[in-house]
């Protein structure tokens, strides 16, 4: 939707047509999710913050002024929620796993504070082209891990390899995808060795 179209939907919701809010959620989900995912410490946090941002935006909809900035307005709620959650996680110092999450949170906080506004967009189409450029075996492994979110132990069982070997392969796949996604131009076949 164009900003002006979004504002028109907001106006309808503000006037009492609650059903229409769904259109805004559908339209902005990808953008808000991408903003949050690049700064979160877990997928759990991504879901919680994205959901919370849209709920908070709805609750405060009466205060939104129709200036074509609804997307940024929702991301503002997401940013505040993220800031609060990351700060809490960064302070965790007891259990080992909490310390590890705290390290990721500290890194995410730095990014959150550095950027006034988010212009980063993960080009899903490019990432999918990069995925397709992997060898069939690597592509299957990536599909299992990133799309289906299969645990590594099960992938190891399916590929008849050790956990360590699969971990090593996934690191190479991630690295290859990151390089490919960050580049421009045509996507060349990705040479990633997975035994």
């Amino acid at each position, binding site marked *: 939707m164009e900003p002006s179209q979004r504002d028109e939907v907001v106006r309808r919701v503000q006037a009492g047509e609650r059903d229409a809010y769904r259109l805004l959620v559908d339209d902005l989900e990808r953008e808000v999710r991408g903003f949050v995912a690049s700064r979160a410490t877990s*997928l759990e946090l*991504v879901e919680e913050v994205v959901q919370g941002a849209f709920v908070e935006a709805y609750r405060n909809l009466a205060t939104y002024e129709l200036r074509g900035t609804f997307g940024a307005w929702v991301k503002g709620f997401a940013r505040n929620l993220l800031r609060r959650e990351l700060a809490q996680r960064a302070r965790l110092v*007891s259990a080992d796993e909490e310390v590890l999450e705290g390290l990721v949170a500290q890194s995410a906080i730095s990014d959150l504070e550095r950027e006034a506004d988010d212009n980063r967009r993960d080009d899903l189409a490019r990432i*999918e082209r990069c995925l397709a450029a992997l060898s069939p075996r690597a592509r299957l492994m990536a599909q299992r891990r990133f799309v289906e979110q299969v*645990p590594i*132990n099960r992938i190891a069982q399916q590929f008849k390899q050790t956990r360590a070997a699969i971990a090593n392969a996934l690191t190479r796949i991630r690295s290859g995808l990151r390089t490919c996604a960050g580049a421009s131009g045509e996507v060349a076949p990705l040479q990633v060795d997975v035994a």
Partner: protein
Amino acid sequence: MNEARLDELLEAYLDQDLTPEEAGELRDLVEENAALRERFVGEVRWHLRLGDRLHVPAIPLTARVAAMLEADEHEPRTADAVAARIATRSSRRHKISVRLRRRRMPMTPWWMAIAAGLLVCVGLFWTLQGDASAVATVRGERGVIERAGVTVRLSAQAQPLNEGDVVAADGVELLLRYHDGTTVELSAGGRLTVIGGTRQGAKRLELEQGGLLARVAKQRAGEALVVATPQANATVLGTTFRVRVESLGTRLVVDEGRIAFAKRSGGAPIEVAGGRSALAGIDGSLALVEPPARAVAANTAKAWTPEPFSPTGGRPFTDDSPYNLAIPAKPVLDRDSAAMAARLATQTAVLALFKHALPLYDADANTPVRRVTSVRRDRQWPADQPVRVPDGVRPNSGSNRALVVLDWNARRAFELYRFAWDGDGIRIEGGGSVPFDGNGVPIPASGYAGGSYLAGLLRVREIAQGRIPHALAFGTSFARKGMWRHPAQQTDGKLTGPDTIPVGARIQLDPALDLDAIPGLTPGERTIAVALQTYGAYCVGASGEPFLFFCELAPDAVDGADTGAVYTANGLANERTALRHIPFTSLRVLGTWDGRAAAP
């Protein structure tokens, strides 16, 4: 080499499948090496971005937002409000949830359409995820399947079972579930081989060590479930029973139904009916066993009077401590009591009886004084402190490596977290102390987020005596974020929602329940149930388990399968003993600790 190991641990971290040892190892790796730390953080964040871009959650965002807003607008004021929770495990820790509530006002078309669609989506999701054959799922931390020489570590995702698989429960119970609804819980430390029946035909399991609890759906004629052990075969048509391989032989306990129990060496079987047990001895004997004597309560509720707290008896803290005051006759409940109780009731309540049980040590004026240094300096432990600690004390083997020293000279409990000897001194990563003669609410908190380790701790001697004269303490993975209530002083909860449990919340088992009418209640369960009716239990913080009661580590405990003579004699034999017979569907949550208000 470190990078390769980091990558392996990283993947386990992303799966939330690190063992405590691996978590410690990963932490050490990234804390000691800046390059590895940067690699770890970078890989985690890129993995999340990839996962977010590529993975499609099972429940659409619009549905989740709709449900949250609906819950916002319509609080469950009516006594018969119905909350249905639909969860999917598509993300690291969080169960994406949607709440459907019966409302006084009709739903708007959008909300109803979303809710209906959600039910269909979830139904389809579970259908697509389901497997027609037998599957094994882990309840708790870990287990393994050995198949054709390959060891596969289990996770919370269901793993199909094949004939010939060897299943080993490493640390906590494992649940095997068959397509006809038959379930078999393998005890912590147990090991069995799946001989047959994973797809069709008679189910046959060979129990090599440990114990199992089976709830067997009615089987077809000629396809009885058979559990074989080194000494015996138990042939089951449909019932609930336990089998355990012990040093003396194989013990069978039947909760419901009837089982034909025979020696493997041959001979006529004996029939073991519900409520009875039998032993197939290593000497070739086979006989019914008389039921174990129920532990005699020291006092009845009316006659009991508190005794002073001492190394041999009594309870700590004042009589008016939140932990020692009985719940009044008609307490005011939390307005979300039904929802919170329903959430807890969906889980199996278990006792921490070994790895995360707390060892208690006595100290007196003759006990050596040690310098205790905390890596974490905070209000609880701002500087090195001298503490009387006996020689040779050891913490529990869980990730918190905790122990408690009861200093009878100072009349304080010293609660030490991540305990380690450092020469003659002691190093911890946090701790505190609480006076025996106070109200049990140290400021700042000395143990869990919600209070002292000692407060609410289930003691061995209390099980032996058949009486717990105080509230219990439990942890839950449903602890609420951002709020707590007295006697807690902080929260480590991570979840939101009216059915999450505030740290400090006090639960109570319906006092009107007739415990004598509950079949199969073990002596230990009965003792605990009475305490829950009289004193209830406090949520003391977040835990990895959904519903976990904290207990003293018995001095004679050996491992997860041998929790000590007293616990074992009272039916609390395993590290994560499930309180299966206590009807937690009859729980309620008080508004305040004293039951006088609906909310703090």
